[in-house]
């Protein structure tokens, strides 16, 4: 468990003396969402940001992850335990922590908190909200899909039907429509809350994707965490394409399915975490909402594999329009 991940992060940390990196007395508490470090998804991305900061600034990290379907007071207790153990700042990964952070931040006014994927605590002085414009990134990969589809038929697979994942869907659909309104978009969610197995059931992901490909879709975008592996397999078995999510999955996914990953929607949680910690290291605890959108490359798309090199021009064009506000991307599906 985290004993090992500790080991990991501290090794990255303990490399530093040899490379005579600066030491910092900042102790960072990292409260992951279900899955924690190594979920091949956004927890991992956050962890990457942490590791980078630890390496550069020599901070002392400690990690803890949520249990599936745990009690609210378990989340609160996680944050309190960090606070009591002298950790400051404490980073809560995932919107599930919103309520707990709100409550605990009030109990510990001198401790600084950061929460990812939630900005409902915008005006709490000791809380920094790190949110992303997933819909913007999704818009671009949607556009890419619409530009690349041979069959004018693409698909979207969401892991669990939550407002967050619906943002991905909304942006994707908008992006497709922007290029060619006639392109059909199939949408499937694998499970419903509180059944979060949709983020970890590749079998379901594969079946759903296979269904879309059989129905004529030739590109499927997944925002389904661990179930995405199934989507990629379905793509490679049926000789179609898929779009990854969160990180550049072309590099993280198994080599056998690399060549079907046309692009990935990048949600740079690692950047957010790193930059937050950087400021902390510089002695200022940011508060309020920081939105990571296209303008700051908080979200984006990947080009590894060179499958979309021919359309990057158009995509960057869309990107610019979004940044300039010429296009406003919806955050909720129609």
């Amino acid at each position: 468990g985290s004993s090992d991940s500790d080991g990991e992060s501290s090794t990255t940390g303990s490399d530093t003396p040899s490379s005579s990196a600066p030491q910092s007395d900042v102790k960072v508490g990292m409260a992951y969402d279900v899955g924690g470090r190594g979920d091949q998804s956004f927890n991992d991305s956050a962890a990457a940001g942490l590791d980078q900061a630890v390496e550069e600034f020599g901070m002392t990290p400690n990690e803890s992850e949520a249990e599936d379907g745990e009690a609210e007071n378990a989340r609160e207790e996680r944050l309190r335990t960090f606070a009591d153990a002298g950790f400051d700042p404490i980073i809560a990964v995932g919107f599930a922590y919103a309520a707990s952070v709100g409550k605990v931040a009030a109990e510990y006014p001198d401790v600084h908190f950061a929460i990812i994927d939630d900005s409902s605590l915008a005006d709490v002085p000791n809380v920094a909200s790190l949110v992303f414009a997933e819909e913007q990134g999704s818009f671009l990969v949607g556009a890419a899909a619409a530009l690349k589809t041979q069959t004018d038929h693409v698909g979207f697979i969401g892991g669990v039907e939550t407002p967050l994942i619906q943002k991905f869907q909304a942006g994707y659909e908008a992006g497709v429509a922007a290029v060619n309104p006639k392109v059909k978009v199939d949408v499937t969610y694998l499970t419903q809350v509180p059944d979060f197995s949709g983020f970890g059931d590749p079998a379901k992901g594969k079946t759903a994707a296979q269904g879309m490909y059989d129905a004529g879709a030739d590109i499927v975008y997944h925002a389904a965490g661990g179930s995405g592996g199934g989507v990629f397999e379905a793509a490679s078995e049926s000789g179609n394409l898929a779009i990854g999510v969160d990180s550049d999955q072309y590099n993280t996914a198994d080599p056998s399915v690399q060549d079907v990953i046309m692009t990935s929607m990048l949600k740079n949680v690692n950047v957010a975490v790193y930059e937050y910690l950087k400021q902390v290291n510089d002695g200022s605890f940011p508060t309020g909402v920081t939105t990571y959108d296209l303008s700051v490359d908080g979200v984006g798309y990947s080009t590894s594999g060179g499958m979309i090199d021919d359309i990057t021009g158009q995509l960057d064009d869309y990107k610019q329009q979004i940044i300039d506000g010429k296009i406003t991307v919806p955050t909720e599906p129609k």
Partner: protein
Amino acid sequence: MSVPATATHAARPAAVAKPRRRLPRWWLVVAFFVILAALSVLEIITGANDLTSSGTVSAMFIATVPIMLAGLGGLWSERAGIVNIGLEGMMILGTWGAGYFGYHYGAWAGVAGAILLGVLGGLVHAVATVIFGVDHIISGVAINIIALGAVQYLASLTFVGLPGGGQTQSPKIPDVQTITVDSLSSNLLDVEKKDLFVVSELAAVLRALVTNLSLLVILAMLLLLLSYWLLWRTPFGLRLRSCGESPVAAESLGVHVLRYKFTAVLVSGGLAGLAGGFLAMVASSNYRDGQTGGRGYIGLAAMIFGNWRPGGLLAGSGLFGYTETLGLRQGGESVHALLLALAALALAMAVWQARQGQQRAAVITGFVALALGALYFAIDEVPGDFTRMTPYVITLLVLAFASQRLRMPTADGQIYRKGSAG
């Protein structure tokens, strides 16, 4: 677990033998074609083409097998009189076993590992229930809790740091061979595309059988047949079943009851483990935390649905796998079509009930039929939330309408202690 549905009926039946001949073999073939024809008609009426596409069929295999194997595990242990709620846990153990051994030693080692881990789970259950005579459900529930914690714990120890591995998932693991007969496959595809009545459906099924058919699917079916043969056609099976029907009688005839129960539970665990392995290796391609998603319980349900018999189990898990697949693939359309089918079935049922003179039942069923029909015409796609309910709702409806002459093994779930004969 629970008193058999028949138990409310008192007293032994009088000396007249009730007609209880089971249907002859050829009947299965007929049923198969009837179903195909029905679906074919349904497709033509509703235009929901995914109902019997080869894609659906092969996905259905994948969805069915884990449930079927888990149910088969349940069948083994309950036939020997041991209720096994722990199937889910043993399945979970199996997924990790497949992940670990599969990654390090190759596909078939993964299969072996899955079975091995399942057997370990079975061992715990066997020791608790058979040797210590602990309540079967307690032990099973405990195993489910332990297994979940154990695999997460193990995963964090074994998969962290491996390429593509982490505490919630293993690296990609190799899959066992799959069979594809390209020429046949493509030809059949043409036939399938032609939308010929029944022929195309048949082609779809055949195509699924010759396209990327995993050896494990075949193995699973063989295991089902083997189990049937072992349990109903050999002395071993007779003894094992007798331990579930009347352990005292068995012991009074020199059968080592506890030994058979123990064996049965181990086999049960192995099968459940294999079910988990299948999920990890065939249905997907790595161990994933929470991968089983309650399929162990579904397997249990499928076994009860199948009246503790292999054939019924296959039907139960097949029905579930099929409807789940439909819901996941092009749910909106396919499930919408199913509404019509259900309406028709209910209507037929109502008529039959009326014939039987069960007026009240007939009225209720008829009403259900109307409601379903109305719903079908009211909407033209079923919203996603409900397509995902399909397998559960259908199972429930089928059970509610099919008259229940379930007959669980008489001594199922009872704690047996040596020497209680007489």
